[in-house]
């Protein structure tokens, strides 16, 4: 496990991106903004897990990223169905 210069830049940018998404999740005016922020945050977390697989040099983290993506997608579709109503 070595964190090089480029890995540091990538991790810093991903941390700033998730901080921005968390700010939108916290102060979003409506619940729709919060759902969009949660969707974006899940994709940012998937990318972060992929970069962690490179840094820790372990292929197991890619399975973790795939499973996280599946669960986030199911959650987002369930939220969309819930705010759309019971028909459709």
């Amino acid at each position, binding site marked *: 496990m070595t964190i090089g210069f480029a890995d540091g830049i990538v991790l810093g940018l991903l941390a700033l*991106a998730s901080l921005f998404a968390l700010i939108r999740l916290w102060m979003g005016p409506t619940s729709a903004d919060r759902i969009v922020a949660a969707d*974006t945050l899940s994709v940012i977390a998937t990318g972060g897990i992929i970069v962690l697989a490179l840094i820790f040099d372990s292929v197991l983290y890619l399975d973790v990223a795939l499973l996280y993506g599946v669960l986030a997608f199911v959650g987002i579709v369930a*939220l969309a169905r819930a705010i759309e109503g019971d028909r459709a």
Partner: protein
Amino acid sequence: MNLLADVILIIGALFVFLGALGLLRMPDVYNRIQAGTKAVTLGSLCLLLGVGLNQPAWWPKLLIVGLFILLTNPIGSSTLARAFHKTGVPVWREKRSET
């Protein structure tokens, strides 16, 4: 090859960062959903490409994760946008001062 992988990784992280910045700066739910979907999807695919150039033995799993992101992220966002539109979330219009 290692330098190219690092450059692609930094470009991907930059796209993810700009997508999140657009999520913070845009004035409307629909603008936010397009900034937060397209830029972040492209950034995630660039991150996958950079990791694959750095570790060439990981290509099959990276391809599966990339296809999954490319397939589900637009579907989820368009489902969300359709749900917002059906429940009557208003579309933002620019306020003109002279009218």
